[in-house]
C-alpha cells in the first residue's frame, strides 16, 4: 500500500515559491528534459502534491540528478518554477531523510 502523507504535501506547499500546483500535466517538460526519465519532473510533482511520500522517497536519486538546467521550465506553458521546485524538494529531503541542513 502506498503511504500518503499529508505532511510532505503540506510542507512543500508551505514553501515560498513552490508552485507545482500550477502544473496541468501536459508533459512538455518531460519530453524536453535531457535526462529523459519518464517521471521527471511531471510525474514527480504529481506524487509530491498528492503526498505519496514512499514514492517520492524512491525518487531521491532522480531528484538529485536534475541538472537544474531549466530546459523544461523555459517551455512550461504554466510557468511552473520547475528547477526551483526541485531544489526545494532537495532541501526537504536533506532535512528529513539525510539530517543535512
Amino acid at each position, binding site marked *: 500500500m502506498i503511504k500518503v502523507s499529508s505532511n510532505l504535501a503540506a510542507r512543500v506547499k508551505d514553501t515560498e515559491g513552490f508552485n507545482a500546483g500550477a502544473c496541468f500535466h501536459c508533459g512538455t517538460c518531460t519530453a524536453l528534459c535531457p535526462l529523459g526519465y519518464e517521471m521527471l519532473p511531471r510525474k514527480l510533482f504529481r506524487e509530491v502534491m498528492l503526498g505519496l511520500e514512499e514514492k517520492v522517497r524512491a525518487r531521491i536519486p532522480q531528484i538529485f*540528478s536534475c541538472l537544474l538546467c*531549466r*530546459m523544461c521550465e*523555459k517551455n512550461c506553458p504554466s510557468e511552473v518554477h520547475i528547477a526551483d521546485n526541485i531544489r526545494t524538494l532537495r532541501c526537504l*529531503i*536533506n532535512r528529513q531523510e*539525510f539530517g*543535512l*541542513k
Partner: protein
Amino acid sequence: MPLPIAPILGIFADNLRKRDSVLPLSKKTAMGWANGLNLPRGGKTVIYTGHVYQMIPAIDAMASQMALLENSFLTRFFGIGRLMNKFVSLSFFMGLTASSEKMRHSNQVLRDIVGLLRDAGVEFGYLYEEELYAGALVYDDGMDETFGHHARRVAERLKKLGVRRLLTVDPHTTKMFRQAYPHFVKDFDIEVQSYLEVLAQAHPKAMKPVNGEVVVHDSCVYARYENVCDQPRELLRAAGLSVREPELSGKSTHCCGGPLESLFPAEAHRISGIRVDQLEAKGKNVVTMCPFCWVNLNKAAGDRLVINDIATTLASCRRQASSCS
C-alpha cells in the same frame, strides 16, 4: 552500488562550514594565477573568481576517482569517509592528483580575462586571500542553512572591504551573487556583472575577419538564469570570428552534464556525450564560457573536438590582430 548521496553532500556541507569551500584549495592554487599581474589589492570594483576555475583540476581528478568508485563495494565506506573528513580534508587529498596541465589552463584563462578587461579599459582590483568560494554546490544541492550562513559571511567580508561591484568570471558564481545572495543576505546591494557583459558593454572595436569559425556552446546558467546569450556572440564576431549555432543553442542550449559529476559520473558522461555529438555536427572548434562545460565536454569529446574557453579564443584573436598591425 551507486554513489551514496547523503555522505557526499555531507562532506561538501562540512567543508563549507569548516573550511570555507566545498573543495578547499591551498593559497598557491587559489591565487597563483595572479602572480606578476600587479592587480591592485581590493578596491570598489574587483574581479571575483570564486575559486571556480582554480577548482576545476581538482574537481576533475575527484570526478575520475568517483567514477571508479561508482558501482563498487567501496561506496559503503563513504559514511566513514565523511567522519574522517571532519578532521582531515579528504577532498583536499583527492585533489592532489589534479593535473598540472589543467591547472595551467585554468590559470591562463583567468589571466586572459584580466588582459581582455584591461584592453577594454576596465579598472579593477582583486581580493587575493580575502576572496571566498560563493557556495554554488551547496545551494544547488539544497543545503540552505549551510549556504545562508556562508553567504552572509562572504557578504560581510565584501562589505568590510568596501567592495561595491563584482566582475564575475563564471556563470555559477554570477548566479549565486545575483539570484541567491539577495534571498539570504539582508540588503545585499553589490552590483554583479559577468566579465562578458562588461566587455560587450565596452563595445570592442571590430577586428578584421580572421576566417575562423567557432561553434558556440552556451552555459545553461548564463543562458537561462542570467540572460547572457548575445554578449558572447557579439564579442566573438567583433574578434573576427564567424559563429555557428549547434542544434539547441542560446536560450535552448543543452546542458553539458557537469552538475551530475559529483554524484552520478556515468550519467554526466552520457549527457556530455549527447552534447558533443550535437556540437560536432556543426564544426570542430568549440567555444565554452563555463569551466565545468569545458572540462566535461573535453572529457567526452577526446580528440574529436578542439574546445576552448571563450577568454582563450578572444585573447588569442587580440594577440593575432596586434601582431599583424
